[in-house]
């Protein structure tokens, strides 16, 4: 009789008593303990059947999932058990998503680093058939093509963002906003074909030039610049504009002297990210810039090698012996990733240190 009235100590591990108001709770360390135990078991089992990292990962994860769910269902009840299962699944998807990133970075570092040398950065591929050679011409090409693309995209993108935030209203603004969004989805190869089609009309068939690559990249870059600049301009408090108007400052000077300086850090971040996005584009440059072995610094004349295209062709036509070509492909890929990551880092630093404080997370 009296035994059923005895409430279990709250928070204690153990199965809940029937009729009790408090259900059992697993101690906080349970998930970690189950995880460690499962992987230990998985390692033991796998070393019996022949060692395999994938086997350990999959088996260990599945064991964790099953054990934790069953344990929680027994102790904490059905609903909490489902919750534990979903939590484990969600953590699992994140781990799964990190695998390719880690593997990519590791593969590129592992295969690319041996080919990095001073010569690799300072020489071109002119006259190189086997080993040796470098990416000087490709780096210069990438910088020139991307630089011109930024020179085209930033004014257009920024002015469009100003139009959308400061002036735009009615149907035109709605369509511009909407089509900018749609434009972000244009496949890069289509942008390349567009640049080719445009230039062919002026220069005839088979045209290849660096400036064409810049046109193609601008098509990809402008929507990104518009989007991010628009976001940043919207964050500028209206009070600042009104204060300027109240002092009799013309509207355009308000925009140039008040609105843009306030948002400049965010705009710079957006532009850096946009550059980072297009600098790794291969397909459009493959079509319109082509490939050459020597240095070309004239954007308007002849083929121009860029880093991603160089990496592509180094793999596709590695020369003899092929190992040297593959090595160059990986090293070029490493340099490319380093540049992109660096740009991303710069963007984050700019936004971290200079961005206006907002309430958004």
């Amino acid at each position: 009789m009296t035994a059923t009235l005895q409430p279990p100590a709250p928070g204690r591990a153990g199965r809940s008593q029937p009729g009790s108001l408090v259900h059992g709770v697993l101690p906080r360390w349970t998930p970690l303990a189950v995880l460690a135990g499962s992987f230990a078991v998985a390692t033991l089992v796998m070393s019996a059947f022949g060692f395999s990292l994938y086997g350990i990962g999959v088996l260990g994860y599945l064991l964790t999932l099953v054990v934790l769910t069953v344990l929680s269902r027994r102790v904490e009840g059905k609903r909490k058990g489902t919750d534990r299962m979903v939590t484990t699944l969600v953590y699992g998807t994140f781990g799964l998503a990190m695998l390719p990133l880690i593997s990519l970075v590791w593969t590129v570092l592992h295969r690319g680093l041996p080919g990095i040398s001073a010569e690799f950065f300072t020489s071109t591929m002119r006259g190189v058939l086997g080993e040796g050679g470098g990416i000087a011409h490709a780096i210069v090409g990438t910088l020139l093509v991307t630089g011109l693309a930024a020179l085209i995209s930033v004014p257009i993108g920024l002015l469009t963002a100003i139009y959308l935030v400061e002036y735009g209203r009615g149907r035109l603004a709605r369509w511009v906003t909407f089509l900018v969004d749609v434009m972000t989805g244009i496949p890069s190869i289509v942008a390349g074909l567009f640049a080719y089609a445009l230039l062919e009309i002026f220069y005839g068939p088979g045209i290849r030039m660096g400036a064409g690559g810049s046109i193609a990249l601008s098509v990809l870059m402008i929507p990104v610049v518009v989007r991010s600049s628009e976001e940043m301009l919207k964050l500028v408090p209206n009070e600042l504009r009104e204060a300027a108007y109240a002092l009799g400052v013309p509207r355009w000077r308000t925009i140039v002297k008040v609105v843009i300086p306030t948002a400049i850090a965010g705009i710079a971040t957006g532009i850096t990210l946009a550059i980072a996005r297009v600098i790794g584009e291969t397909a459009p440059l493959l079509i319109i810039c082509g490939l050459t072995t020597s240095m070309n610094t004239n954007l308007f004349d002849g083929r121009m090698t860029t880093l991603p295209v160089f990496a592509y062709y180094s793999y596709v036509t590695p020369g003899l012996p092929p190992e040297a070509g593959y090595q160059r492909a990986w090293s070029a890929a490493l340099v490319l990733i380093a540049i992109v990551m660096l740009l991303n880092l710069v963007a984050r630093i700019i936004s971290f240190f200079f961005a206006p404080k907002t309430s958004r997370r």
Partner: protein
Amino acid sequence: MTQTTAAPRGSNMPASTGRRGDKIFSRVSTISGVLILVMLAGVTLFLVAEAWPAITADQAVLPDQKSLLEYTAPLIYGTVLAAILALLFAVPVSLGVALFISHFAPRRLAQGLGYAVDLLAAIPSVVYGLWGIFFLAPQVKPAYAWLADHLSFIPFFAGPASVTGRTILSVGLVLAVMILPIMTAICREVFLQTPRLHEEAALALGATRWEMIRMTVLPYGRSGIVSAAMLALGRALGETMAVALLLSVGGGVSLNLITNQNPSTIAANIALKFPESSGVLVNALIFTGLVLFVITFLVNFAARSFLARRSEFDGAN
């Protein structure tokens, strides 16, 4: 997400105060807005103009002596197949990752982990291609052999298994990794927009975290998830270099996912053939590019209008 709903700043003011500087500035910025529309029209126009010679050309001069439609159809099939495979892999994972970042990860870590996922988007596609050839393909090869041995009664795995691992299934995997970031980013935003009160109400009624997510976050974000998936589909359809490098092409249409004889995709086909093509072959390739443009445009258009309508009619924002 931040669509047209927000009224332009100072929209109650005239566009120009009549001063010359104001007039010029508002003109210039309006013109660059219009320029974007012109550009989009230009892309269509120039592609049509350049595709036209192929449309009107005699069948004998076209690639493989096939009609333009016969040439394009298998490519469309390959493009759609690869994109759908990618979507199948990417959707569940990115939903999980987005939930992880928005609702499961410790608050202080969440943003950093979000950046880590975004880094996947920063990696150039040519690097994904190399990674696919040198790392992924050898790793998945034994799995294909196993599938061909044990599940060959399913038409997808009829085999014979590829000995290089460079199949359309591998391409689907790589594309899935590549579209993961964009889909995760949008889903994350959508999940974070769930009204706080909905979530707290669910929790206050005694819901577990998963029940709270099932009752408030997922229903609220459903249209956002669909749009995100469609945008990701658009990306996968247009992805070029990873496919061009990784896929071993045999041409033709087949359901078999694990052989060496794979249908190519439009974008990869252009990248592989364009540099060596001339004459009407170039025009034929541009025609396939036009088809790709139209397909991705429609997919993106649908996704964006879905997303735009959502933010306009949400009562809860």
